């Protein structure tokens, strides 16, 4: 045993290569084979054609991208971006004060409050979205309550609108906003705030000039983690939007399922990737830390 280890140490260079290979090899292999190669393949496919039986054939065509410049597609992109934007804003507005309060409560209670944010998200997201549908429907809880209280006589129509989709998206994605903001706010030094108010700053000034800049990193990474998935969550607009307000995700899903036109779906995905890259670049420009996204 001891001999072996000494030998290893003597042959340090080759041992190092070996252990480097063992450590970094698997992750490299997976990232290349299951992330890089598939994405490159999708990019190639987006320039391919289909034959009469919808098989992808390697005949170059820019047609898939030309189709995407159609006004209908542009409208759907615009709506997707709009819905994602509103969702992000809502998540910030609802989430910030909330994160602020829980991040600054006394430590014992804080843990519980924090876990209470996470627990709902351990229940399957589809069934929770369906829960909203049961709640908001014409014969759902809300309408039944309003009718029995004689506030309304006819059920109000709440389902299958853009607003319903936004509600569902906000609901699904808000933890991705709350958690990074919570982390950022928790790091705030309490004495800094005291100093600010001791120096005569009004609460508003303290907020805008001290608190907000110090916690903006949380808002930025939260926004990225809300905005981008929002573009792809096709099931939310399916279940709550009623299928009449498609988003980019629905378009892609349709081309890979019933539409059966993979090259077109691939082109749509590439558009979505480009959009994502632009947003990530913007995030980095604003000083966002990439590592903060996965923690």
């Amino acid at each position, binding site marked *: 045993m001891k001999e072996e280890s000494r030998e290893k140490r003597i042959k340090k260079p080759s041992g190092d290569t070996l252990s480097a290979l063992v450590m970094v090899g698997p992750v490299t292999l997976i990232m290349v084979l299951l992330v890089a190669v598939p994405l490159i393949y999708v990019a190639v496919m987006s320039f391919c054609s*289909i*034959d*009469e*039986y*919808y*098989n992808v054939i390697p005949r170059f065509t820019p047609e898939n991208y030309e*189709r995407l410049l*159609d006004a*209908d*597609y542009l*409208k*759907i992109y615009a*709506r997707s971006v709009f819905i994602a934007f509103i969702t992000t804003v809502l998540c910030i507005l609802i989430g910030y004060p909330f994160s602020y309060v829980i991040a600054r409560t006394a430590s014992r209670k804080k843990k519980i409050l924090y876990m209470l944010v996470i627990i709902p998200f351990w229940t399957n997201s589809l069934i929770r979205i369906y829960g909203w549908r049961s709640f908001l*429907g*014409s*014969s*759902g809880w809300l309408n039944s309550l309003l009718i029995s209280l004689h506030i309304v006589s006819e*059920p109000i*129509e709440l*389902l*299958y609108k853009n607003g319903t989709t936004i509600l569902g998206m906000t609901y699904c994605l808000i933890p991705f906003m709350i958690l990074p903001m919570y982390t950022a706010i928790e790091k705030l030094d309490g004495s800094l705030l005291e100093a600010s108010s001791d120096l005569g700053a009004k609460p508003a000034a303290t907020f805008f000039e001290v608190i907000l800049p110090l916690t903006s990193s949380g808002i930025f990474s939260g926004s990225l983690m809300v905005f981008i998935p929002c573009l792809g969550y096709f099931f939310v607009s399916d279940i709550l939007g*009623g*299928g*009449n*307000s*498609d988003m980019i995700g*629905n*378009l892609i899903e349709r081309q*890979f*399922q*019933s*539409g*059966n*036109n993979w090259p077109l779906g691939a082109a749509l995905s590439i558009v979505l990737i480009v959009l994502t890259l632009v947003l990530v670049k913007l995030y980095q420009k604003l000083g966002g830390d990439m590592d903060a996204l996965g923690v």
Partner: protein
Amino acid sequence: MMKKLVSVMTSILMVSMLLCGCGGSKAKNGELNVFIWTEYVSESAIKAFEDEYGIKVNVSTYSSNEDMLSKLKSESEGTYDVLLPSDYAVEYLIAQDKLEKIDRQVMTNLSCISDAYLDQPYDPGNEYSVPYEGGVACIAVNTAKVDKEITGYADLFDPALAGQEVVLDDNRAVIGMTARSMGYSMNETDRAKLAEIQDKLLTLKENVKLYDSDSPKSALISGDCTVGMIWSAEVALAMDENPDIKIVYPKEGAYVFLDNWVVPKGAKNYDNAMKFINYMLSPEAAKMNIADFPYLCPNSEALAQMGDEYVSNTAKNVPADVISGGEFVKYLDPDTLAVYDEMWTKLKE
């Protein structure tokens, strides 16, 4: 702490293995992977088959023929053993040589099927397919909430019905219905006519509240929608729940379909598939199926046993003249289908 976490994780894993074991224990005579429409084949019929034959049936579902064709193409050969495509999809699959022949030796129950449904143009001589159930895409109206008299597809475009309709999430059905409302065919390929159809189709946009192929009855029963362009049995089931709902067979002639059992090329469990299909043709299975999903039933023996109440219910047992006056969907060339897809995107944008 780490030990605790690991032990909790391990116990979760063990419990789940146990659960899997429970699920798999039935498979003494192998398995069968069936890929069928949602809300179409009775769970009790499948369960009865499993119990009788000791074969474990894995069910996957699809919402449109196009979904199924797409999935079939992207999966490896041998993923599915039994499919349930409609008429035109059967034709398409035969054309592509994607089906195994039916073993007539095993199909002892084929005699229960009425001749009217056999030897159809999409599969002459039933070499590759045997009929399951059929029906039409028709209209459901909640008469308590809608005053307007509705007689055909054309009425669905009335601006008075804005935001009230549930329609099938199926482009061939909705575009075809629009075409028929204008006196055109559901299988129109002429670009000028398709442009007209598109203009008309887009006027439907304001009226549709929900696209749902899987269970459109739900929105009618809950009251979220008051009018529907949906499958006939879905109307029948909604009528059972709410007597205010009435069925309307469109005067323009309805979208008619007949769905069929087929076995895809390379199926791994061909023999089990034959047993399954033959079982589904039996009167007992057919009765369970139409009890749960009351579509048009080609099984004349089952129909005879269901009694008058079923046979005289025009929503369940679709009248013969509705079928003969309707139109089947046909498979179209990819260029035309691309136009259909664009129209659909425009409608749903």
